[in-house]
């Protein structure tokens, strides 16, 4: 088994000893400039608004679909199970062929 390589840990440890004495306060006028630029951008673009609201709209649409199916479930199931309704796709094609 190779001994662990100590070169990088020693260099990193030495680098950590360096104190960063540079000033961290915002330079003069920086905050004013950034705030002005941030608000000058104005309202978010239409595409951003669309992206933001489209997911909500999708959720609402899905919910409405579920509610509509649930509310009409009895009618839908009655239609699909009714013996009188015999006009499947095959019969419709036959009718069209007969007409011609």
């Amino acid at each position: 088994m190779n001994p662990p390589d100590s070169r990088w840990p020693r260099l990193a440890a030495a680098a950590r000893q360096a104190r960063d004495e540079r000033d961290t306060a915002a330079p003069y006028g920086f905050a004013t400039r950034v705030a002005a630029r941030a608000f000058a951008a104005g309202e978010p673009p239409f595409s951003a608004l669309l992206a933001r609201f489209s997911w909500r709209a999708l959720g609402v649409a899905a919910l409405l679909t579920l509610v509509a199916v649930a509310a009409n479930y009895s009618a839908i199931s009655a239609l699909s199970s009714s013996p009188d309704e015999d006009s499947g796709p095959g019969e419709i094609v036959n009718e069209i062929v007969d007409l011609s």
Partner: protein
Amino acid sequence: MADETFDLAGCLERVRRRDQAAARELVEHLHPLVIRIVRAHLPRRVQEEDLSQEVFLKMFTRIEQYKGSVPFTHWVSRIAVTTCIDQLRAQKRRPEFRWADLSENEAGVLDSVLTNERDVAPDDALAARELVHKLLDQLKPEDRLVIQLLELEQKSVAEVSQLTGWNQALVKVRAFRARRKLKKFFEELKRKEKS
């Protein structure tokens, strides 16, 4: 952030109402946090002021998305880190590492590390830091970021994961890969030094 009495919640509320004075206060309050991150991950040939401005502009653009699930400073730190990594990725070529480009102190530090004969002198800490940055420039942006956070800023894997949005396993894999590359790089340097 020296000002412990700063009313961050109130300031954010005013910023959301597009109060420009509040936006200025917020920038001044967060500047020390942002500039430390930017300085630690600044790509060559990019001005720190330009990059910190980009971080703040992103922060204001996305401020409506901040829901308060994490402290605001963590949220801003993540924007700063991802902005820096985007800049690092945008660099077309990584600068080549050459002995000839090192200062006398940096060459001395590298020599003492490679020969393993003596520890780096405390006076050479600044040279060691510069040298580390030049070495890290040789890595992929993602690997460089992980090593910087883990080994220079001594953050935990969980903290790196939170800052970058990468899962902890990915952070560990990137750290492993970066250390292996550094080891290989030291071996190449030693060969070049001998020849």
